[in-house]
């Protein structure tokens, strides 16, 4: 009996070890893949990075000089996308969770939003071209590109906001309403402030995506080369993802631009991480006195 027990215990421990091993290996593979990609980019790109590279425009058919206009363009487009996507997305989520009567129509809208999330980004690009660039006559511009990217990240922001709003305890709403505070005020003074950290967490994903997408901006905002920096939101801009795409596929001398391509990729990754970092800092600041 004793030996049987020992064996069965051993077998159970073994199983446990195998299982933990597998889980650990999965985590390790993901970390290694991520580390590998980052290492590859940094290793190949770091040589191109210099003060001139990030502060000067390109020269000599893109084979020399910097990428400053593309960095600036990506920041403009991303900030524009946030300025459009975040308020619109939060407002939609507030309507869906706080105001709309739960039923068939709301379900239909939610299905629609989920479908939107699955639409390939090139389709957003073509929509932006047809609607903002041509029909609304914005031309290929920061405005058209920001709107297109804003719509692209809308489903992510709505989804994250809905979850965050739902996680605010119902008792907070009841407490506020029972004091004779209106629903509007309750939403803005109690529900939204408590949901904001969650909303930002989810929105970070969308924001990173907005900065890195190529297809939505290639028809709506991005230029192969601009001789001067944009003066208004109706001007075209260079943008990092599009710059990489152009250098890697359409340049006059693709091989000669290789170091610049890697350098640009490194900068793009850094910009995306930078945007994420800002959001994380804001979030942790807002979370400080939240506990329930």
């Amino acid at each position, binding site marked *: 009996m004793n030996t049987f027990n020992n064996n069965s215990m051993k077998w159970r421990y073994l199983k446990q070890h195998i299982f933990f091993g597998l889980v650990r290996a999965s985590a390790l593979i993901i970390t290694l893949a991520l580390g590998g990609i980052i290492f590859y980019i940094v290793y190949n790109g770091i040589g191109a990075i210099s003060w001139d590279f990030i502060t000067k425009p390109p020269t000599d058919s893109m084979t020399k000089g910097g990428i400053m206009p593309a960095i600036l363009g990506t920041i403009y487009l991303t900030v524009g996308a946030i300025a459009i996507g975040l308020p619109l997305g939060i407002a939609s989520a507030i309507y869906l969770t706080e105001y709309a*009567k*739960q039923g068939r129509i709301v379900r239909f809208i939610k299905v629609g939003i989920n479908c939107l999330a699955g639409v390939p980004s090139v389709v957003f690009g073509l929509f932006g071209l047809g609607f903002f660039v041509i029909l609304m006559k914005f031309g290929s511009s920061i405005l058209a590109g920001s709107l297109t990217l804003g719509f692209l990240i809308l489903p992510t922001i709505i989804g994250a906001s809905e979850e965050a709003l739902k996680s605010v*305890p119902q*008792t*907070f*709403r*009841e*407490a*506020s*309403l*029972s*004091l*004779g*505070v*209106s*629903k509007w*005020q309750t939403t803005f*003074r*109690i529900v939204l402030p*408590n949901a904001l950290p969650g909303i930002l967490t989810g929105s970070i994903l969308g924001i990173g995506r907005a900065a890195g997408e190529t297809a939505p901006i290639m028809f709506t905002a991005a230029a192969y080369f601009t001789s001067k920096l944009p003066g208004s939101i109706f001007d075209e801009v260079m943008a990092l993802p599009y710059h990489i795409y152009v250098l890697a596929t359409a340049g006059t001398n693709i091989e000669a631009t290789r170091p610049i391509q890697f350098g640009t990729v490194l900068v793009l990754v850094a910009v995306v991480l930078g945007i994420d970092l800002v959001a994380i800092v804001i979030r942790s600041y807002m979370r400080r*006195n*939240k*506990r*329930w």
Partner: protein
Amino acid sequence: METNIIIKLNNVNFYYGQSRALTDISMTFGKNKVTALIGPSGCGKSTLLRLLNRMNDLIDGTRVEGEILFEDKNIYAPDIDPVEIRRKIGMVFQKPNPFPKTIYNNIAYGPKLTGVNAGDLDTLVEQSLKQSVLWNEVKDILNKSAMNLSGGQQQRLCIARALAMKPDILLMDEPTSALDPISTAKIEDLIEELKKDYTIIIVTHNMQQAARISDETAFFYIGNLVEYNKTEKIFTKPDVKQTEDYITGRFG
């Protein structure tokens, strides 16, 4: 309406979707009285309480029939704003639910946003906390988060928060069921004190509590008002057998 009556229900029916939660309730609540609503779980006592400040409006698919008169006006009349009703009829919930704000801002929140009693907030905060007998415990930590208080303190803070709106009526939905005996005793003393200035309607599962603190007691069973009388009478010589069975612990 007679001067000593503050709320009057006439043939009130209430439905969650298809199912009826309250059947033909007619009753009155006395001014500056403590009225206890008792009965087994699911008897409709909490539902009735939440009808009085229109908190059931928040639940989709509910329906009210009959009328509930407060100051001679039907609070379910189409031209009545439920927000106005809730300013005059405050509520304390089963679980203490302070906002994740400072103690001071928990109290100041309602007056600030509604503009009611918003004159001198410092005085109002102090006054409300003194009324709920919490002032001495928190006067030095008004700018600390309310979430750090104990459960009993949080519940007294919630009472103070409701009092800051200077309501006519205070509805209490099992306010001590989540609290320890000492905190419960403090709240019961507080209710005794508050009834000089307020009308209190309290739902409770605890029959000793109803007997201790209330002037009138209403016994509900499956959505019906079975018996409603002076508390003394209900707990000594109830008219209905069902009431007697319940208060003596034979069911419920």
